[in-house]
């Protein structure tokens, strides 16, 4: 039983750490604000959720403490992570941050332009 618990804890925490590393690498390597938002909103959310899950398992299976605040934290991160990514992307677009020059298509440009002209 303790072996299974250990495997579970180590697996979730190292999984989370790897994805935090992916986030950091993505923020450095990707070319523009929008592609960086991909790395930041997805990998960071999954990474932190997974680390918190590992901490929860550690305290539950090893120390016998059922800490429901960690579970709430996971749910809150899950809900707010993507909204944060969306808000940053939208704010960047509306304040005129350019897409990467190798981008192939932009359907939103005309809509925003039309809206600006109407005002």
């Amino acid at each position: 039983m303790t072996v299974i618990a250990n495997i579970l804890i180590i697996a979730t925490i190292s999984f989370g750490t790897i994805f935090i590393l992916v986030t950091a690498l993505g923020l450095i390597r990707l070319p523009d604000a929008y592609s960086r938002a991909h790395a930041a909103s997805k990998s960071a959310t999954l990474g932190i959720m997974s680390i918190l899950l590992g901490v929860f398992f550690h305290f539950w299976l090893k120390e016998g403490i059922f800490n429901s605040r960690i579970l709430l934290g996971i749910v809150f991160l899950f809900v707010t992570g993507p909204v944060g990514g969306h808000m940053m992307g939208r704010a960047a677009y509306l304040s005129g941050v350019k897409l990467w020059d190798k981008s192939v298509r932009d359907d939103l440009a005309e809509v925003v332009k039309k809206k600006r002209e109407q005002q």
Partner: protein
Amino acid sequence: MAFQILLNVFIAITWMFLSVSFKPTTFIIGYILGLLMLLMLRKSFSSRFYLDRIWAVIKLAFLFLKELTLSNFSVLMLIIKPKMPIRPAIFAMPTVLEKDWEITLLSNLITLTPGTIVIDVSDDNKTLYIHSIDFDNVDEAINSIKETFEKAILEVSRS
């Protein structure tokens, strides 16, 4: 749906009163009996049996967890490639969803899944503008979202 749950709790409490025992186990037995009663009487409700909807929610949650893990592996694969062969794009996706919570749920799901982020929702709530990190074909991208998430959300919200 809320009415059916309320009715079920009411039946469970009635069962507790009938058997003069106020323990959680009696409540659970009464709840299961009430569930059977509601299952037999499901034709007389205007909405569908509420366990159906709960089952659809559970399926949506698992679909979501699966897609979340897959999306993170795809980001990992993109980032460790030395040449960065990505083709970003923003495309418009029409949606048939109407209520605000459905659209919010859909855009959250899209944001957390492979290579897509919602940048804007049009004023009439009919189009989502999605930034895709590695873009080949509009129809393919739209279809894959429609087939999975939109269908699952419709399954939850249909009355």
